[in-house]
Structure formats: structure tokens, C-alpha cells
């Protein structure tokens, strides 16, 4: 297991480094001068040259990439070209909003989706199963930002049950919670459907396996067979799906943050793209990439640990 942890973590680190390098190369290989992009079409050549020096773009490519990595290791992602604050500070300031949003969405989806899938699998082909199947698929297929738009339209604009914009007062927990309801609902809805389908499918598969027949042949109660023998196995795929799903979650968080004008990484990236604040864009994309890699790594590790077949041998 220890070897596996080391290996898997090392792989995660390598992937992050490669991703950073890729991003960096992209900036320099795609035609277009970042300095010009930042300053807009009406910038004078002198201004562009000055900006290039400020961003270090005048140096040879290998030097740039070496400097970039050296700075990265020190936790330096450069400076915001508009406010001149360190990018790290800005990004880390926005990160908790997004993390809370994503975390609560998963909890919401899990609390509803997993029991739903379980129940559907055990009552296969009943009316309930069919309806829940139809509803789940509809949830999955509706893009989160469309859900967000409708939630905004119905619950905030028309009914005025929930606030439409922002994240709530800094000190007021209740206010913050109220502001989270609609965004969490928007992101989580697709995942309710997704987890329900996933758990249903893997539950059905596990119930076919012959050790379930053994458990029944020993007269164990259906309750025990289901919750102790089947669900324990059926839940395993869910963990890895959530890990890989972090990418989708981050993407939907971005769109949802914009619809509800909520602070967060997504909104930060979007605003920075609009204001052509290049270092902030790159810095926040980088942080979200790290977050994504971290979560896939963690889910692999948790999965390996949950399954005794891998826990002891790896």
C-alpha cells in the first residue's frame, strides 16, 4: 500500500508539472503576444515592449520556463497586471468559495442520488424505477448553467425565495447558507441523476454475483445482504467517479458562479479573461488544475484503501 501511495502521488506531481509546462508552452507557441493581448488593440509599440519586459517575455524561452518553474516552487504565480497584487493571494482568496460550493454539491447529490439508485436497483422495472430512471437522465442531460438560469428565473426573480446574486455577508453564516442554496442545487442536480444511475447499475451488477447467492443461501436477511454485502461493493465506483468528476464540477462551478454572480475561482477566471488580466487567468487555471489532479489522486487512493483486495496487496 505504501508503495502504491508513493507511486500514485508521484504520478500526480508529474502530471501537474507536465500540465504547467503544457500551459506555459501554449502561451508561447500559440501565435499572439500576451503583452499585446493584455494592453488591447490600441497599445503603442513602446507600451507593449514595456509590458513584455514586465512579464519577462523578452527573455529567451528556456530562461522563461526555468524562471516560471522556479517561481512556481516558491509559490509565486506572478502579479496581477491591474492591481499589482500577487496572483497567489487573489486566487487563494477566492478558492474557499468554490470549494464550499463543490463540496456541498457533492454532499447534496450523494444524499439523494445514492439512496435513489439503491432503491431503484432493488425495485427494478417497477414504476418507481422507471420514473426515477427518466428523471435521473433528464437531470444528467440538463446542463448545470441552464438549471442555474431557471433556478434564478423561478426562485430568485419570480418567487424571490432566495437571493439572486453574491455569496452573502462575510460574518453572517445563515446569509451565506441561503446564498448557497440555488448554486448548490444547480450544480448538484445533474449529479443526483448521475450517482443514482451509477449506483443502480453497479448495484444490479453486484446483486448478480455469486457471493450474493451464497449469502442468501445462508439465510441472511435481505437487509443484511443488501446493505452489508452488496452496497459495500457497489459504492466503490462512486468514489472514483467523484474524483474524476471534479473536472466537470469545476467547470459547472465556473458557469454557476457567473450566473449567480458569486465570488469564486470561476468568476475570477471569467472576469480576468474579460479584463485581459493574463497572469490571473493562468494562475487560477493552474490552481484549479492542481485541485483536479489532487482529487483524482485522492479518489484513487481512497478506492485502493476501501477495497481489501488492493489495500493489502498494493
Amino acid at each position, binding site marked *: 500500500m505504501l508503495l502504491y501511495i508513493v507511486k500514485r502521488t508521484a*504520478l500526480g506531481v*508529474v*502530471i*501537474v508539472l*507536465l*500540465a504547467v509546462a*503544457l*500551459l506555459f508552452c*501554449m*502561451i508561447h507557441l*500559440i*501565435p*499572439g503576444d*500576451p503583452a499585446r*493581448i493584455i494592453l488591447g488593440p490600441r497599445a503603442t509599440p513602446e507600451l507593449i515592449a514595456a509590458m513584455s519586459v514586465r512579464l519577462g517575455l523578452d527573455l529567451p524561452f528556456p530562461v522563461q520556463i526555468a524562471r516560471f518553474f522556479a517561481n512556481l516552487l516558491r509559490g509565486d504565480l506572478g502579479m496581477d497586471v491591474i492591481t499589482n497584487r500577487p496572483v497567489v493571494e487573489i486566487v487563494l482568496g477566492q478558492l474557499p468559495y468554490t470549494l464550499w460550493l463543490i463540496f456541498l454539491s457533492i454532499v447534496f447529490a450523494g444524499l439523494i442520488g445514492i439512496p435513489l439508485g439503491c432503491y431503484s436497483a432493488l425495485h427494478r422495472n417497477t414504476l418507481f424505477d422507471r420514473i426515477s430512471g*427518466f428523471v435521473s*437522465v*433528464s437531470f*444528467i*442531460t*440538463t*446542463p448545470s*448553467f*441552464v438549471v442555474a*438560469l*431557471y433556478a*434564478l*428565473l423561478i426562485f430568485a*426573480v*419570480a418567487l424571490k425565495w432566495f437571493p439572486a446574486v453574491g455569496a452573502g455577508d462575510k460574518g453572517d453564516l445563515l446569509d451565506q447558507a441561503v446564498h448557497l442554496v440555488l448554486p448548490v442545487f444547480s450544480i448538484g442536480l445533474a449529479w443526483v441523476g448521475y450517482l443514482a*444511475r*451509477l449506483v443502480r*447499475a*453497479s448495484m444490479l*451488477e453486484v446483486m448478480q454475483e455469486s457471493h450474493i447467492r451464497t449469502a442468501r443461501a445462508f439465510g441472511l436477511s435481505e437487509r443484511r445482504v443488501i446493505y452489508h454485502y452488496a452496497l459495500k461493493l457497489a459504492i466503490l465506483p462512486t468514489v472514483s467517479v467523484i474524483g474524476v468528476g*471534479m*473536472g*466537470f464540477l*469545476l*467547470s459547472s462551478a*465556473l*458557469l454557476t458562479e*457567473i*450566473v449567480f454572480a458569486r465570488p469564486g475561482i*470561476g468568476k475570477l*477566471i*471569467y472576469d*480576468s*479573461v474579460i479584463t*485581459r488580466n*493574463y497572469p490571473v*487567468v*493562468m494562475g*487560477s*487555471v493552474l490552481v*484549479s*488544475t492542481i485541485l*483536479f*489532479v489532487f482529487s*483524482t489522486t485522492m479518489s484513487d487512493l481512497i478506492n485502493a484503501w476501501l477495497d481489501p483486495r488492493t489495500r493489502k496487496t498494493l
Partner: protein
Amino acid sequence: MIAILRRVIKEPTGLFGLLLVTLIVVSALLAGVVAPYDPIALNIPDRLQSPSQAHLLGTDQLGRDLFSRVLHGGRVALGVALTAIGVALAVGIVLGMLAGFGPRWLDKAILLLFDTIRSFPTVMFALATVALVGPSLQTVIAVIIVTTIPTYGRVVRTQTLSIKSNEFIKAEQVMGAKTTRILGLHILPNIVGPLMILASMDIPTVIALEAGLSFLGMGVKPPTPSWGSILNDGFSLIRVTPWPIIAGSVPLILITLGFTYLGESLRDFIDPKLRKSF
């Protein structure tokens, strides 16, 4: 093929999916003929109308007929989805088979590349690219291709690996067949079916992605109609009228629903084992 189709329409959800997909594909193809108005023609006096006989879905803030814009938007959505998925599929098959059948180091290298590309959250990666080269439909397609290749590549690799361990592949090797023959004649035909299903189920994802990016103003440039940009208009008018949001979202939901149901019923019939990778 016809036999499969017959089984698909036997299931109510399969039939439902097929009908939806046909409806939207046909209306997108015939948009030029069916659409009652020019989708980009301004008509300021008629702006922000609710649905009526003249304007089935109402008009937007510039008086453009939303129904016509929705029909033309379908073209953009399908065009982007089919191009992007087609290219990604082709590249994914080549890379995936190389990884699955090639030497171990190549497998590891390709996997690492896939994992690296996959580590960017798609929308954020798209925004970063747009920040560099500016918004355009081509950028959107390129980003979608790059981020989808690893998905297909990984599936192809896993399938190749699992088929490779079958005795019929070893039998080919022992008979003296060359690698190209084995890949083309014995592995590819056995993975194409599941891949097609996967691709058909991915069409809605890609359409939603395009809509999402256009919603952010990072996709198609105005005044070209796209469901995403209609939604964006609706978003800024949300306190004035709900109709643009409804007009932009209904076809989006319908097409994703249609493709998903179609793909699911295809998958259930062709390859029950694929259910695992759902």
C-alpha cells in the same frame, strides 16, 4: 442495422430518443427553409415580444425572431459537435490502439499525455485558450477536440487491452499475422460498436459545452445565432422577460435528452457490458 433500429424503437425511451434526435437534426438541416425569419435581421420595433402567431417563441432585445434563431442555432450546435467528436474519435482511436497494443513505454507515455490533458477542467482550459487567441467557433472546436481525445483514447486503450488478451488475438499472432492486420481486422471491428455508442452519448455533452462557452461569450461571435448566445441574451434580460431563456434552453434539453436515450438504448442492446463504464 435495421434489426438494431427495430429493437431500439421497441423500447419507449429508445423511440422517444430517436424521434427527438430526428426532429432536431431535420429542423437544423432545414433551418434555411423552415425558419420564418432571417435569424440576424434586426427589427427594433418588434423587440422583446412574447410568443405569438407571428413569432412562435417571441423576439429578443433587437427584435430578432427567436424561433428562427433557435433553428439556426441547432446547425451551429450539431456542426460543432459532429466535427469535434469526429476528429477526436479518429485521433483517439489511433493513439488508444497504439497505447494498448504497442510497447509498454509507449503506453505509459501516451497515458501520461492523456492524464495531463485531462487534468485541465474543460471550461477553464477553454477560457485560458480564448484569453490567448480570442473567442471564435474554431477555438471552441479546437478546445473540445483536445479535451475529448483523452476520453476516447482511454476507452480505446482499455478495450484494446481487453481484446488483446483474448485467445483469438494470440491465435492470430501464432498464425503469423502482422500487427497492422491484427489491429485493423480483429481489434478495430470489435471496438467500433461501443465507441460509436459512446460518441453518440457524447454529442449532448459537447453541445452543452459549446452552449456554455457561447453563453460566456467565448464561442460564436454575434450576431451568429447559437443556443448559448440566446441564453446569454436571456440572462441579461432575466428581469424583463423569461422567453429567451426558455427559447434557448428547451432545444438544448431536448437534444441532449434525445441523444442520451438513443445512446442508452443502443448500448443496452449492443453491448450490455459497457454499462460498467457508464
